[in-house]
């Protein structure tokens, strides 16, 4: 008996004429996610995707759970098209779940009309077979704990587990955006949220050695690796920000330092985004968490943005963000304690409600164009492949 997985996809089913396009991307992503396993075969029929693959079931499911666009994963038994094979496959499938003391029903679908037995009869025969062979199970056709699904197609398929997938849309089906990634908890989550909507991402990180250590950079690479688990690969642009930072630190009005830094980061990111064909920026900002994220501060950073800035966490509080970070696997990395530049380049009395006029005046001291050139000449691009 061969193990196969039936995948259902929700949203993309609705997309009418675009559907083949989404399905193609989804299948490509599934193949990417299962790369390295033997005997991989992905096919699609009637609103379902079938995956045949060797490899430990836990691991296969773990990886499929990271493919946006999949709504449910059902590890299934496939069998020959005769009722005896179907009956024993169903029995095996039930044995794999915790069935003692539970209720069940059998639901059959026969798309292959050359099979001589009709759906209700299949259900009845399979149900009787299960009842006869397993103790501690009873039938409940209205509210069963276990739904045993039998599908009669070119072969028989039986499954009774439905594992929720991540939902969303397959990455790459909705353009590309650039994520401003720091080592913190928020920005990786922001990247995840936008990817979930089918947007491919690249990331930019502002490195300022010796004020930030190389371990901080390694940490960002690790975060990328986890995020890339949801999309295959991420290109990370590491900007050498030290000289800009030094000059801001030396000349800038101390209380506006954070705002000036963030405005520079947005400007630099924008240049990179344009170069790589990204249509928007993504940040981990939410309202009111720290001084740099008050409404006024957000307005001041946003002012220099010509591209749209996506802030998917805008309405989240810390607890919610942490919960998500844990779920997607970035939390443990984010909390590793490596000092960042904040310990030096953090204003003692930051302006929490900066006035745009003051910011503009402060920036007159600097050669912004020069800053841009300086930073963009010094970008290291790292290809990060996903870890599972």
């Amino acid at each position: 008996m061969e193990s196969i997985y039936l995948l259902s996809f929700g949203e993309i089913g609705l997309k009418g004429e675009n559907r083949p396009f989404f399905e193609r991307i989804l299948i490509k992503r599934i193949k990417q996610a299962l790369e390295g396993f033997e005997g991989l075969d992905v096919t699609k029929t009637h609103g379902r995707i079938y995956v045949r693959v060797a490899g430990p079931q836990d691991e296969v499911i773990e990886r499929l759970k990271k493919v946006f666009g999949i709504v449910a994963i059902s590890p299934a038994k496939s069998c020959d098209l005769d009722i005896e094979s179907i009956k024993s496959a169903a029995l095996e499938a039930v044995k794999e779940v915790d069935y003692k003391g539970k209720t069940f029903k059998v639901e059959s679908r026969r798309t292959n009309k050359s099979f001589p037995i009709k759906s209700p009869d299949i259900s009845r025969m399979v149900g009787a077979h299960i009842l006869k062979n397993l103790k501690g199970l009873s039938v409940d056709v209205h509210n069963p704990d276990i739904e045993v699904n039998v599908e009669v197609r070119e072969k028989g398929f039986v499954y009774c587990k439905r594992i929720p997938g991540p939902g969303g849309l397959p990455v790459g089906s909705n353009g590309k955006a650039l994520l401003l990634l720091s080592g913190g908890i928020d920005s990786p989550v922001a990247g995840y949220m936008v990817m979930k909507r089918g947007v491919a991402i690249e990331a930019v990180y502002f490195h300022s050695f010796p004020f930030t250590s190389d371990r901080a950079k390694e940490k960002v690479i690790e975060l990328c690796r986890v995020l890339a688990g949801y999309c295959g690969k991420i290109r990370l642009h590491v900007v050498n920000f030290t000289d800009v930072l030094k000059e801001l630190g030396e000349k800038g009005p101390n209380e506006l330092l954070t705002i000036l830094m963030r405005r520079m980061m947005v400007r630099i990111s924008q240049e990179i985004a344009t170069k790589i064909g990204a249509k928007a920026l993504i940040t981990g900002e939410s309202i009111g968490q720290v001084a740099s994220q008050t409404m006024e501060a957000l307005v001041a950073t946003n002012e220099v943005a010509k591209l749209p800035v996506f802030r998917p966490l805008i309405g989240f509080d810390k607890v919610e963000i942490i919960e998500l970070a844990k779920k997607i696997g970035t939390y443990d990395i984010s909390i590793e304690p490596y000092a960042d530049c904040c310990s030096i380049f953090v204003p003692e009395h930051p302006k929490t409600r900066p006035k745009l006029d003051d910011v503009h005046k402060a920036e007159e001291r600097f050669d912004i164009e020069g800053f841009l050139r300086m930073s963009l000449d010094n970008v290291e691009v790292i290809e990060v492949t996903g870890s599972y």
Partner: protein
Amino acid sequence: MEMKEVYLDNSATTKVAKEAVDAMVHALTVAFGNPSSLHRKGMEAEKIVNKAREKLALFLGVKAREIYFTSGGTESNNLAIKGAAYARRRYGKHLITTSIEHPSVLEVFKQLEEEGFSVTYLDVDEKGHINLEELKQAIKPDTVVVSIMYVNNEVGSIQPIQDAAKIISQNKNTLFHVDAVQAFGKISLIPNLSGVHLLSLSAHKIYGPKGVGALFVREGTKITPLFNGGGQEEGLRSGTENVPGIAGFSAAAELVFKNFGAWQAKMRELKERLKTGILSEIPDTVLNGPDDGAPHILNISFLGTKAEVLLHALESHGIYVSTGSACSSHKNARSHVLAAMGKTAEEIEGAIRFSLSPFLSIEDIDYTVEILKKEVNELRKYVRR
């Protein structure tokens, strides 16, 4: 162009000497037997271990059967202190140590406190030395273990072990443990071990490999093992012996003791030059620790800088130093040693440890002073005082 490398972090760990590497490769590929095996291959490995035991004993001026191999300084400290405390529990539950011990000693005492022992932590003065009078006062009839480090790993202060031993030995029930991880191979221990019952060593601080250490246990001293098992090391430390590690430890120790006088003198000279260079050429610098101290450790605060940033700045010039103890820096903790010495917050934040080896040159030192001058100056622009 290759960058110049000046490794000034020899108290954290050392580059392994060629002699030690060769001895290890031999034990890995030729004499690879299990010392417990009855055949020739086993005997060959057993001989390596016993030869190493004899060598270390010689360098400490003790008996070979008083040397037990462990997986490093941390294990030696844990085994010595817990082993002694548990074995002596019925005589009392009071313990003494100092406030400037390495975490592998301090944390053991914290653990023992949780298990119901009471611990006196001796203070140190501003140079990092304990007060013998205070020790004398602290010892009570139910004091079962005293643990004092020989050379402090952050500031290089040397404790008066011999005098402490005299005081402690007044009390028959008290075992005296000395963490000599930073002292072994750096200062003379031989004349000063009478009255010491337990002494910890680690190979990777003396150009030997990580993952191997030793514990001296004076004959007749009973301590409780941490590992039970096959009964290796006279039952005090079960587990297949780390033969390659032990071979490397022994070869490294041999090298160190062959060159003891010369290397000590060389390190003193380099340290003096580095100290004078920094203190005279860079303003607002403060020496932490004694004027003399161990020959290989120098700790200086660069006021108005953040040590970690300075460390990274030096790193970009190929100079490797440390901020406080290597073990705690990950956790971004402020040095408990400097704090115990009464250093100010600013002094602690700007403290850099330079730790030397005889493989450095005068040019390396001068280069370091040059770079320091430049980088400290640069950094001070950004750090508010």
